[in-house]
């Protein structure tokens, strides 16, 4: 374990992630993990500083968490998962004596509020609406397509259906037809509806301290929900200047003083940027892992530094490499979904395993033989990691994985 520096902040991590704990063990900040009771036995067994907390329930004991951490001398709370973002906001408003932080975190948690706030601040967003039931979805689908001057019988342009408060692709559906609408169950409402933007979707990871971007990464999606790699291709990186301006706008509109954000954008062929959504927590698809592979810095440690009020600007400058130029190559990963209805074995395709870019995989043998049908963008069965010199080859390689069977 790395020696802890008592002059630096004492960090509370909201959420259980072994990767994050691994990063903390190798870092000089004191830490405590705040996570549900199911993790406690593991924490005790491995001597991990731990406070048990149920994030599902909001009740009159909530203040207790803030005071407990305050008494322990904790300086700041860092959220790891979507569900913990407003908890961290609430606790930080107490710890940092800044009531605004709670309201800010609520913006990050509610996709509808988030879009309105962005719109009010002059950021371009697509058409969106809130839906309370299936009828709302049908109406929105029809109206969007009317706007596009479609005739009856023409195939509809799709719309997107997203849960208000879930991370990433969870609960995200693409709706084209009335049948798609009918397959949405009642418990998925309320939800956010968005028009489809025919553009190039990408994500940004930005570490912010004192309202200033410390490090900005552009993650290129090859196919949404399947694959991502960093740094992006030169084609996308050429927009870096514009993207930086957009992020600065976001920082201003959302009044972000510090922390880590993960927004998603579309860029259309004429260079117009549309804001999709923003999260105040680490992205899925292990982009942190990819960053470490490409640049060599630990993204969790980076995140903790920008949250820690005792971090200095010099420390940050020494920590972060220079974007793009310092990358040793491109790191990408592919989320595997079984393509067959019945599977019995995990078998990494030879062309994947023998490709010089193949790094490692985190796939497990199948537990069940029957594959449940995917309605929404579901959860992948595991990730396959790649690393190599050439961005275009990486992109093509990731694309090619979509046609391969990993589960047979």
């Amino acid at each position, binding site marked *: *374990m790395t020696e802890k520096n008592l002059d630096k902040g004492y960090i509370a991590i909201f959420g259980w992630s*072994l*990767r994050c*704990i*691994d990063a903390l*063990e*190798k870092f000089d900040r004191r830490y405590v993990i705040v996570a549900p009771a199911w993790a406690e036995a593991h924490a005790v067994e*491995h001597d*991990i500083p731990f406070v048990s907390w149920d994030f599902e329930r909001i009740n009159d004991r909530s203040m207790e968490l803030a005071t407990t951490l305050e008494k322990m001398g904790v300086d700041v709370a860092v959220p790891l998962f979507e569900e913990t973002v407003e908890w961290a906001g609430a606790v930080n408003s107490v710890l940092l004596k800044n009531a605004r932080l709670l309201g800010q975190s609520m913006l990050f948690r509610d996709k509808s509020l988030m879009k309105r706030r962005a719109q009010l601040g002059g950021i371009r967003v697509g058409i969106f609406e809130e839906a309370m039931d299936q009828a709302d979805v049908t109406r929105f689908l029809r109206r969007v397509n009317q706007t596009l001057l479609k005739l009856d019988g023409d195939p509809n342009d799709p719309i997107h259906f997203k849960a208000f408060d879930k991370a990433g692709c969870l609960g995200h559906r693409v709706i084209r037809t009335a049948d798609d609408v009918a397959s949405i169950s009642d418990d998925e409402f309320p939800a956010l509806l968005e028009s489809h933007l025919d553009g190039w979707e990408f994500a940004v990871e930005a570490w912010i301290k004192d309202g200033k971007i410390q490090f900005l990464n552009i993650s290129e999606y090859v196919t949404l929900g399947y694959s991502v790699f960093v740094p992006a291709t030169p084609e996308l990186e050429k927009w870096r200047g514009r993207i930086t301006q957009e992020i600065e706008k976001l920082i201003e509109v959302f009044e972000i003083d510090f922390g880590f954000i993960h927004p998603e954008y579309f860029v259309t062929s004429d260079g117009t940027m549309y804001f999709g959504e923003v999260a105040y927590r680490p992205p899925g698809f292990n982009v942190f892992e990819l960053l470490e592979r490409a640049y060599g810095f630990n993204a969790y440690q980076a995140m903790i530094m920008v949250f820690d009020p005792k971090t200095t600007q010099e420390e940050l400058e020494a920590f972060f490499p220079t974007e793009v130029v310092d990358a040793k190559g491109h790191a990408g990963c592919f989320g595997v979904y079984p393509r067959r209805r019945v599977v019995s074995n995990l078998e990494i395709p*030879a062309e994947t*395993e*023998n490709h*010089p870019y193949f*790094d*490692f*995989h*985190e796939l497990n*043998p199948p537990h069940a033989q029957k594959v449940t049908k995917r309605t929404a963008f579901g959860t992948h069965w595991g990730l396959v990691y790649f690393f190599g010199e050439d961005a275009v080859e990486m992109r093509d390689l990731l694309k090619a994985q979509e046609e391969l069977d990993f589960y047979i």
Partner: protein
Amino acid sequence: MVEAEKTTSKSATANLQALLDRLDRQIIHLDGASRIGKSDHALRVLEVARRVLEHEEGLPALRQRIGVMDQAGLFSGSDWACPTNLQPSLVKQTLTHAAPATITLEAMSLLRFLVAATGDHANPGLLAEQAKQFLTQVLALNLDRLLGQAADEAQRNAQGPLTPAVDRLMRYLMQELGPDGILDHLIDEVWRIMAQRPLQVDHVKGMVVQIAQALQSGSTNAADAHLGADRLISALFGPATLCRDDPGIAVYINRLSRADERAIQDEAYALARAMHDTGLVSDYHAAFLRWTLDADHARMLPHALGLSTTGLDALRCYESLVYGMVDAAIQPGTAQAVYGLALMLERGILYSPPIAPSLWRLLETPLSEDCTSALGASCGTLLPAKTHLVAGVLMLLGQPLGVGQGNNPTCQSARALSMWALNDPDYLLWLIAQITRGDRLVLHFEGEPLDTATLPPGLATSALLDADPVSVLLVPHLDRAYAEMGRRCIGRSEDPHRWINPELHGWWVGRAFHIAVDVATGALKEYEDFLRAFHASYHPLHNGNQPVIHPQPAGIAVTDATGTFVGWHAITLIRAGLDQDGHTRVYFFNPNNDSGQDWGHGVIVSTSGAGERFGEGSLLFEEFAARLYLFHDDVLPSPATVVQVPDEQIARIAAMGRKSWAAGRAG
């Protein structure tokens, strides 16, 4: 073949150097990971290591890196963390059936042993000699891989894609260590197991076949170097003159029918000698027995069974019953029952009034459908289920201490069967009659009947497949009854075995009950008093020299080779007495399949050579006491003046217990 070619070309195309670069990088990550990240990174190392393992030239490169991998923490936090705790006998199962990552970890562990054995990379806590010993045993138990017998393509395919790599690893280990000693070790292992005379010998026969093939293939040194191999092989495949060349049953019968009286008698003597020497029975022996009855040579039967005057007398008194049992049970395929029959006759239990009629009842009772299918599932359907059952009964009655629990958590039930076969055989036959007729047992607990057909399952969650025929039928029911008795004791303040043991086994289980731990907390409770009471009950020098009259249930805190507590285990106390060296030993029955176990801190259970009868394990009285946590006592006052146990003796034993299983149980 096609499959094999594909595999070869696949691994050949993979560039070994690229794999090794990847491996080295993952090892660096593993090394840099914190204690929390180790297992995650270890999996990544294993993923690449598996691919190197699959590469035809990968083994030397892995060997070169194993020291670094070990230091980086590849094994930390896994069952492989402490090499001295590993069991050679578990390796085969892992290498054959585990998930690829686990197979790879096992392979890396074997390489770790290799570098320790050859001194390339010293491992603190793993001596070169120990490492070599371990690998020798592993190789001996995996001879089939070395001899290329797993080369059958269909079989190989079924065994998974890593099979060629594991075969290659075995050959590599053999080549690096040299073949000396491996065969000898295997032969010793067979003799050691057979000294315990288990009922189930299929795995032993498998090992004997491997020995025979190894010797025949000429790949090893002169056969005379392998002491004892010939006796084992001939006992199975050519125990007597007319079958010395393993001619097949039909030819053998033909030869017998043309042999003269003297030759037949020699044949009978030779068969009997082979059987009693080894405990293994050849199929020719079974064929011979059937032939003697068919061909009117019944007077040869006692010779072929190798009976003493006791057995001979029992045979004469119950001639038609014995012939009936031979006819019902003895076939090539159930040959071991010949040994059971011989030993049963020697025990003289037929003279006990209920036994002979009980056996007649068994012979005449048709089996229920459930019994037939259960026996079919575990013994196969080549022979009728009834044949297997009668054979199983003969074996159990002949060798009460030969029964094993198989790979099932049912030590209680296996122990009960053994006790009844030893002490209460007519009760055992009554239970079998209940099952074969009605698929249920009605046992009683404190006056209340328990019908096992209506009870939920106990500890055994699946059907027993790897047990002897009597266990296959009875254990599922006994297990349920045992679990139900446990349920009925819920809420009582003491260990339930206080009530269960006498109720389940019989009146002869002592009603006084001693236990060394507090049931609620698991902490030691009045340990010294417990040990003193045990001496007063069982130690011949401290109990007025009273022998153990009936087998008594007792509870052992089983510890592993490092002396660490593993679990509670049911055994039977058979007797206590002096060994050849004048030390007092406890002789006991352990329903585990192999009693020869290392319980750590020098406590190694002996199975032969210290006065044990077949199937008994033994320990010095003090060593046994140091692992004991529960026993029963009949509370008869001692007739003689009792010699007090010296305090230092109790203190010594208590220290051994506290240092091992009772560590952390301060009470």
